[in-house]
């Protein structure tokens, strides 16, 4: 059974229909990407899962809790953490550890339990040494890690990253993608990354592509990213490594279908050269 499930949701803001029969499933320990061009309804979908938006029609069920039931909102938000695009706008405190403690304090935990969760979350994202620093002194990647630590401290079963990697440089992005992978594989957390950059999707297990408020493609990362024509039709570009692998296949080289990232391609070329 899926951890979270959006079923046939329709939602409008005024006369603007943003979601139209939209469905999506999140599984524990799976890294899912929701991709789509700007204005396709991705952010509204993220807010549905965190019960920040209640659908006009259809249902959102998280770990058995229905978001339409007001009493379930606390349980849903406890289970699903949301990280936004700009980390600067999510910081509520003036030291790294105080910011991470914000969520656990709202859960009404004891001081000792708050300290335990704060330290564990900061260690998980590699910011423990900076716990007493002012968040403004952190780099963009570190601020985004701080935002992730802030939701990890709530003990979530799922984390949604809403375009959270888009403002980062390549090394910081690679670093965070590794962290996401670790959260899925080692902690069994379901991760939903919302993006319009298919390079990020190459690291995921499952991809949904949405356009005009509906899901138009879904499948494993390899299935979706190798379908250049369909992606182009929905305003997305296939990753460079994927496109290069495709060109090599056309020229008769035996490049496997699961070559999606630059690392995959380099390792294939390295292997072939040997």
């Amino acid at each position: 059974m899926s951890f979270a499930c959006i079923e046939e949701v329709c939602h409008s803001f005024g006369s603007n229909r943003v979601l139209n029969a939209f469905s999506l499933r999140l599984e524990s320990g799976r890294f899912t990407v929701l991709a789509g061009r700007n204005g396709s309804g991705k952010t509204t979908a993220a807010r549905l899962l965190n019960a920040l938006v209640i659908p006009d029609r259809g249902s959102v069920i998280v770990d058995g809790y229905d978001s339409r039931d007001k009493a379930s909102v606390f349980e849903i938000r406890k289970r699903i953490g949301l990280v936004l695009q700009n980390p600067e706008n999510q910081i509520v405190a003036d030291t790294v550890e105080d910011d991470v403690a914000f969520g656990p304090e709202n859960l009404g935990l004891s001081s000792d339990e708050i300290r335990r969760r704060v330290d564990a979350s900061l260690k998980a994202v590699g910011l423990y040494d900076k716990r007493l620093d002012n968040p403004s002194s952190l780099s963009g990647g570190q601020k985004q890690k701080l935002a992730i630590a802030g939701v990890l401290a709530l003990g979530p079963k799922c984390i949604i990253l809403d375009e959270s990697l888009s403002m980062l440089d390549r090394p910081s992005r690679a670093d965070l993608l590794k962290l996401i992978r670790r959260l899925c594989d080692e902690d069994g957390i379901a991760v939903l990354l919302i993006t319009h950059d298919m390079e990020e999707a190459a690291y995921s297990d499952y991809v949904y592509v949405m356009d005009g408020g509906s899901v138009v493609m879904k499948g494993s990362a390899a299935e979706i990213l190798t379908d250049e024509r369909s992606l182009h039709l929905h305003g997305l570009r296939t990753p460079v490594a994927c496109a290069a692998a495709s060109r090599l296949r056309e020229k008769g080289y035996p490049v496997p279908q699961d070559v999606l990232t630059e690392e995959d391609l380099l390792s294939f070329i390295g292997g072939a050269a040997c």
Partner: protein
Amino acid sequence: MLRDVTLGRYYPARSVLHSLDPRTKLAGLIIYIVTVFLASTPVSLAATFLALCVLVVLSKVPVRFMIKGLLPVAFILAFTAALNIIFAVDGVWKAILITVRTLEVVFGSNILTLTTQPRAISDGVEKGLSWMRVFKVPVHDMAMTVSIAFRFIPILADEAGTVMDARKSRGASFSGGLIKKSRALIPVVVPLFASAFRRADDLSVAMDSRLYGYSRTGGSLHPLRYRGCDMAAYVMMLCYMVAMIIMKVVGA
């Protein structure tokens, strides 16, 4: 100049004032402001000024850093003083009184924010006013609002500086007379407001998703505890307040 605003900025240092409980410092600020407005003679005004000097020394925050932060309010002070000198009876004394009082209040508030992290101020306000919960006053929300307001002062000041730099790079001028300056500021204020609303929206979503407003009955990462130095500070504040009241009564 907006980037020089020190109100809301925390200055990390190891000082007696830094180590005090935020409730002690908040009580101290209230007492100090009351005594500043009680002081109406040169002697009592000098006493409040002396108290301020002691606080500045104890804070270990460089005086130059504090004075730099006062530059944005210098114009308002000069303008008020000029109005008093021109229009008020006994104008020079009134100008001095108002200018010194304003400077002392601003400096006093600055010392609080420079030596106390915004989160601690928020916790202090919340604990100190917790008795108001009986009257259904949303103390926690008020404290959180104060804390976030302090946190965003330097961010918005930086942003205003960036917008002004962007406009300067496209030929805008912020020099000249008062009317010209005011006109030049309008295109800065509009994007600044738009950005502030965008930030506020993001922040409210982030706070909602981190369960803000559901429970405040549990513990805190830094539970507030009074220590010996807080008791000593309260005794000193009490003595200072009594001395100022006596000065007021005897007219010194």
